[in-house]
């Protein structure tokens, strides 16, 4: 609207031009500052994953050793330490525990290393099989067949006072294993 008014009154516009230019510049500058003040918290909020460096992992108890007889591979579940009150059952994470002997364990993430689908243990054939693209792993987690680029992701574990602990809390991916 102001432009059409200016067109009607070229003389008035001409008279104030330096003041108007100055006000315009101030206006633009103020909005750049205000916009940045708005953008910084917004971008920080949305992209917080790039700023937070805290390790989400924690030691988690998988229960007493009696739950895992020697020379067997069994499923164990734990409540994910990175959790929210409204997570529900989604925070229940499974993993495969292979008790080799004594304090010797292997704890595998459930996720296939190919694309993360849940691998299943087949006791009789001694294989982990993935239902998505047919990845297969041997008893010790090493890659046996199919598209997986590596063996199963392994949790670090410790045995304390007859309890098996693993360090977990994040979804294992190729760029960030367990």
């Amino acid at each position, binding site marked *: 609207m102001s432009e059409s008014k200016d067109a009607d009154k070229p003389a008035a516009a001409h008279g104030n031009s330096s003041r108007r230019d100055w006000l315009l510049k101030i206006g633009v500058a103020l909005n750049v500052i205000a916009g940045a003040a708005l953008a910084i918290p917004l971008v920080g909020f949305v992209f917080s994953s790039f700023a937070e460096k805290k390790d989400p992992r924690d030691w988690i108890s998988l229960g007493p050793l009696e739950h895992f007889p020697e020379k067997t591979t069994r499923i164990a579940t734990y409540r994910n330490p990175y959790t*929210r009150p409204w*997570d*529900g059952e989604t925070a229940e994470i499974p993993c495969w525990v292979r008790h080799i002997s004594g304090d010797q364990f292997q704890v595998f993430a459930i996720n296939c290393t190919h694309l993360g689908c849940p691998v299943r243990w087949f006791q009789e054939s001694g294989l982990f099989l993935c239902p998505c693209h047919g990845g297969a792993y041997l008893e010790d987690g090493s890659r046996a067949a199919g598209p997986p680029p590596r063996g199963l992701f392994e949790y670090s574990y410790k045995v304390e006072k007859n309890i098996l602990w693993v360090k977990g809390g994040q979804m294992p991916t*190729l760029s960030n294993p367990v």
Partner: protein
Amino acid sequence: MLNILRNVAVWLDDRLHITAIYASTAGHEVPKSAGSWFYVFGSATLLCFVIQVITGACLAFVYIPSTNEAWTSLQYLNHVQFWGWYLRAVHNWGSNFMVAIMTLHMIQVFLFGAYKYPRELTWVSGIFLLLLTLGMAFTGQVMRFDQDAYWGLTIGASITGRVPLIGEQLVHLLLAGPIIAGETLSRFFTLHVFMIPGLIIALISMHLRLVLTKGINEYPKPGKPVRKATYDAEYAEILRKEGVPFVPHAIDKDLIFAALVIIGILGAAFIFGPEGPGGRPNPTIVDTNPRPDFYFLSIFAALALLPDWMEVLILFVAPTVCIALLLALPFISPTGEKSYIRRPVAVLSVIFVMLIVGVLTYMGQTSPWSPKMNAWSGDAIPEKFVKGRTPLELRGAVVFQNKQCRNCHALGGQGGERGPALDEVATRLTKEELVRQVIQGGGNMPAYGKKLSPAEVDALVSFMATLHTTAPVRPSSKPENNLPRDVAAVRPPALHGR
């Protein structure tokens, strides 16, 4: 009275400029040839989007985007909420129709050369609309927060995790944390109902605005190539000679098709009902078989069939190249023939792409590369493969089932297809080769040497050595005996070889 109404109408038109807006939109002139059945897909795609917005807004009245509650609220929608099941079904079928009709629209626009000068940006905005619609499809699948959604997110995160250098941060960005948890679903809900639809509405506005400013593509005539110098004048001439207002002269077929689309969506929704939700989104239920919705089955299939070294290439480079090519198309080929009759390469590339996507989708549906997890306990060995076999061979058949060979190897058309079917394996491998294959593995088969005792290997191989003919032949010396068949066929000639 009539005078008062007329005055009101004139007053409203003066304030709202309705006549002018109408004349420049619905009443704008289009070439008469554009009133064709081939030109109905664009408006039908828009119609689908409107249906999605309306049904989606209604579903959001009830749906709870919380990891803990989403699945239950979907069950509530399906079983308790009045008409809830039907709106879910319409929303689901609306999305299927939208992707399908949008694909037809894109193919039509491509084959009719509508992307050429001066409609480059219409095509470019259309490509972004295609990508955003696929984004809606993926985030929509996550809204149906069940096992498939959970594992679909896992697959998405695993793919993202392969990005070099910043993979870890990108996974966090995608999942709103290091793992699928509380904020993940909220994030996808925001994308599905606010962000992506907002962008789609903005882009549709641009897309339609461009259709108005640059005019709808005339029905292309073979032998009439586009030239930048002359096209604008030619188009103006077409409009002058045979231009008709879109409403009411060219909208008739759009209207009929629109009604058919609505009836199609409503009918499919009524007959087939809503999709899922499947099993609870509980990751500890590992007895699951995650599959994406059909739009992504072709990518899912490609990921099973590619060799390792190609995966990063196909996951990141190929989509980038494909999208870049689509975006660049109107700038690579801005002029020349429009009609598909003079563009055999264009027609062939559509057929080629459709065949690839179609075959991959079919393969994704059947997933022959996946072991059939319950074949060993669920699929019986057909009678013909055990009838008349020796005890050792029968023992071998039991080993074959017990050791879960059947999960990857079919017999009689039943079982996994990961490995070759073994109906006639003895015609391909000698007994020694069978022993070696079982013990050492090879190809894509793991070694079973440590999992089988020598006696089991012996039995298994004896059984497999009988698998070389489709029908066991009974001793011919006593064709007319009165004994029951299975007693007569104590030792079939199947054992003669090897």
